[in-house]
């Protein structure tokens, strides 16, 4: 289970928008969603492949901790990516996005990749927030946008992976300091060994050189 990088994600948004279901849907395909069963988790991990690199995504749900300022604060700071989720059938969850986003911007590193997700796209008949509104909000605030359904798994994969791609792109551009774990990015175990010998140079290579992607 080696990996080139580990990205930490957080999932934020009002309660009941389906954060933990999204998480389970993405991290564990064995739990197939069926109509009479909703299961969610607060933590999950999964390996994905981006540009031939194995990347481990670790996702932490922040649910239930909103009442403690220190906790939300720390979570934001420790993550490289955030999925900001609302429920397309409940407008109020959309209306609260601004304050979620404010929080996120306030506490996170400026490089954190935020993806806006309108969940429950399977419930088209009960739709309360137009797709265009989500798009407009995302455009205005510089977010990536996607509508998903944790139930039908529609776009779930893409949401997490596109976020990872964006993070990876930022790493390539040198925007993220990958040696600084506080950013929510960790270099895989193998790389760590080399890094302990030669602090920066060897580590840098493993991150920057595209060609040796196969090994990890």
């Amino acid at each position, binding site marked *: *289970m080696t990996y080139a990088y580990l990205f*930490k994600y957080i999932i934020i948004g009002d309660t009941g928008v389906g954060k*933990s279901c999204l998480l*389970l849907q993405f*991290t*564990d*395909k*064995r*739990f*197939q969603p*069926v109509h*009479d*069963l*909703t*299961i*969610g*988790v*607060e*933590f999950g*991990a*999964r*390996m994905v492949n981006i540009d031939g690199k194995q990347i481990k995504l*670790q996702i*932490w749900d922040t649910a*239930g*901790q909103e009442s*403690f*300022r*220190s*906790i939300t*604060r*720390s*979570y934001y*700071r*420790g993550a490289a990516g955030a999925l900001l989720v609302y429920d397309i059938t409940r407008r109020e969850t959309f209306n609260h996005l601004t304050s979620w986003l404010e929080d996120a*911007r*306030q506490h996170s590193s400026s490089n954190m990749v935020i993806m806006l997700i309108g969940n429950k796209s399977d419930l088209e008949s009960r739709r309360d927030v137009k797709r265009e509104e989500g798009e407009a909000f995302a*455009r*205005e*605030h*510089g977010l990536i946008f996607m509508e998903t359904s944790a139930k039908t798994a529609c776009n779930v994969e893409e949401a997490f992976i596109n976020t990872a791609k964006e993070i990876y792109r930022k790493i390539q551009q040198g925007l993220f*300091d990958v040696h*600084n*774990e*506080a950013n929510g990015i960790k270099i895989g175990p193998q790389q760590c060994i080399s890094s302990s010998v030669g602090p920066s140079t060897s580590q840098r290579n493993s991150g920057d050189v595209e060609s040796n992607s196969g090994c990890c």
Partner: protein
Amino acid sequence: MFGRSRSWVGGGHGKSSRNIHSLDHLKYLYNVLTKNTTVTEQNRNLLVETIRSITEILIWGDQNDSSVFDFFLEKNMFVFFLNILRQKSGRYVCVQLLQTLNILFENISHETSLYYLLSNNYVNSIIVHKFDFSDEEIMAYYISFLKTLSLKLNNHTVHFFYNEHTNDFALYTEAIKFFNHPESMVRIAVRTITLNVYKVSLDNQAMLHYIRDKTAVPYFSNLVWFIGSHVIELDNCVQTDEEHRNRGKLSDLVAEHLDHLHYLNDILIINCEFLNDVLTDHLLNRLFLPLYVCSLENQDKGGERPKISLPVSLYLLSQVFLIIHHAPLVNSLADVILNGDLSEIYAKTEQDVQRSCAKPSIRCFIKPTESLERSLEMNKHKGKRRVQKRPNYKNVGEEEDEDKGPAEEAQEGAEKAKGTEGGSKGVKTSGEREEIEMVIMERSKLPELAGGTSMQEQNTTDEEKSAATGLESVQWSRPFLDMVYHALDSPDDDYHALFVLCLLYAMSHNKGMDPAKLERIQLPVPSAAEKTTYNHLLAERLIRIMNNAAQPDGKIRLATLELSCLLLKQQVVTSTGCIIKDVHLACLEGAREESVHLVRHFYKGEEIFLDMFEDEYRSMTMKPMNVEYLMMDASILLPPTGTPLTGIDFVKRLPCGDVEKTRRAIRVFFMLRSLSLQLRGEPETQLPLTREEDLIKTDDVLDLNNSDLIACTVITKDGGMVQRFLAVDIYQMSLVEPDVSRLGWGVVKFAGLLQDMQVTGVEDDSRALNIIIHKPASSPHSKPFPILQATFVFSDHIRCIIAKQRLAKGRIQARRMKMQRIAALLDLPIQPTTEVLGFGLGSASSSQHLPFRFYDQCRRGSSDPTVQRSVFASVDKVPGFAVAQCINQHSSPSVSSPSPSASGSPSGSGSSSHCDSGGASSSSTPSVAQSPSDDPMTMDQPQPNIPDQLVIVNETDADARPSKSPARSGDMETVSLSPSLIPAQQPSISLLCEDTADTLSVESLTLVPPVDPHSLHTLLPPTGMPPPPAPAAEGTVTPDEEAAPSGPVGPTEP
């Protein structure tokens, strides 16, 4: 991570998914478990899938069929889990089990189901199971599991976790062992768990006692040590920094410290008194006082004691006061800083250290003698022996008596004393305390005396002051406070001063702070009802900072200045007025005057100056200083620098280059102006240059009789097509449709700022223009967003050209007027820019202004047409202002810079522009006079309409990315340079030239018109023709259109 294959367990038949959620299936899985009690390589996959399926069925059962849970309990299936776990079955199985547990506890919705799961203590057995925590995945799942459980804690469930008789509380004690885990997410989870536990403990005395007696001291002492170690690392990071290279690491350490403070604050605001006492004690005596406060004092003293540097200590203390508002803690801390004496700390600590190191009340920063894990272990065993005897907080002390020496009595005495005082004092003995306070009382009278006597007296330096107090009480000095003031005096830079100001600000804004504490140094809390005096010592230092900031080479950063202004206001502004002494006000006015000079120096009339001016105003008002955010930024911990290459915010560093110097000068000017106005009790009437409320908005109904309107078809990007009339006001263009209820009136369907507009011709259609208007970006993260992106098709190319010109002229005109207002603000003589007015507004003749204004009257209460008129009437003054031109000469060329290149423009379009301007100059002579004639007083009334509209425009880009604004204005330039626009500008040049010729007057304007009649004739025929296929509505408009061109002809020709 997990294989994707599924349902190869459910008997391998494909249809399994149908009845996979059923009691029967659970029974089947149970069978699988009973047949595979031992984990082997062969059955591993089977077991994992079985466990996973069980999870799914249980959740399904919880939601659909309670018999499932009954079966689970009946068969004691949890035991299988434990059994599998204990076989060291490897991470694959472990992870599955932990995931299963996570899912179970997270998704169970029925209380009873939850109780089933929790009964029998199996969960606790799993909690204490020694997993392989070196595996990051297991660690993550495990801590998530604990976190999930902690979220399920409540009065009913708590008994499943906390065992009163055995003093076991595995969930909590196992969790806190990871409080310093290297993985941040794990630490966060631990904090979450503890907070959830503390919250529940409020309603559970036994548990509370357990937490406090058995775990609080070990946990808090270790936590405090952990925080302190980070602080020392942080300090090292600052000390060893070269060329700001440590900034990344530093900002993490700072964020980490903030996390800790927020966490401590979250504990404190749960408001569990028992715990808070212990925590406050530890924080004060083991961290804040010995490490932070002591470092304020002379760095050489104190021997081997761990220390941090002065700026770091000031910075961290500010954070403490900004975040933690727990009264007993902040008051004790403030007390020592403001009134404290070194002996109080040192003398005591020396003795204490000898006594014992592990006592919470000892003032020193030292490593706990035991690791957290071990002390928990020890406490637990002790508990078993003794807890029945006297389960009391004091027991903690007693128990440790065993290992530690004597002298505990005094210790306890002190603790008791503190308890009775509501824990408000983290001090050792009360005798000393009284003595200190007495001294303070005497001292606090000093400034009053001084204030009463003379200014000289007030100007006494710190040294003199402290010398004076030294006479009164030799042994009591206030080294920390002295240091605080001293740091404000540094003439070289504001490195320390910024922190000191933050600290003072933070203390005075701390909700837990006893105002009396601050009054002793005459630092009033913001809400203080009435003040009669203020701290002159501090006020003078603040004013000195302001004065310094207004110097061309001042080394004061904008953040420091803004904070100084805040603090000064806080000191002298009361609900009834301002109590500042005249002499101080005079000094402040001096500083303000300096700042005006400073800006004047940069007022070169560069085109960009206006954009900068408005942008700075906007960013200053939109983002007022937030001290808490300021103190979250690690970059200010490093010595102030000037280069933007560091990525440090502009306000937190010195300016680099002329542009930034200009921006800085502008800001200093704004701040001091605003402060001065406020202290003198005068309202701001000049700024901002444009107000939102003065703008025309969608759905406004305007009287457009006699206005220039151009009919057009607006084709939006998505293919929509509407008929509208284009009207150009001073700052805005609007698209209106006729108001059905009143002839000649129009309803605004869209209004956009001319400044935000990009106009381009359409290649193959001379009647059409592409127009894009961007909306100001609301945050730095967003891109400018087009609110209008459309093609405007006019009835013929002439109308098209006219429209284009109006838009282009409007922009130039608006900018000029604003520049004049700035000049007025800077007490610069105002250039009579009549020509521009007459020209730029050419299309909008005075008769056209009025309807807009009239209409607006209802909305803009202040700007009343009569005032306007009076301004118009002041034409005669213009010549007198000719003096101003020498200054303005600088500005005018740049404004008109595009025009020289315009000279080669096609004559056809040129003539049309002349036509326009001619019309304007003749019929709008009053308006021409308007701006030049204004002295600052008359100016503010009519002007707001104008500039405001412009302000909003700029907001967009400049705000988001300051560096962009030059580039953007460049864009604008190119826009205005587009071929067909150029002719329009040409006249303006000629006007300008005449203008600078000193003799400019209303007369000079009439010089232009002669050209017009000429060209008018060429123009008129097309306009005169009935527009061919125009919509019916246009008929009413066409007269208006013609009114403008034809109007001029009459007046000018004579």
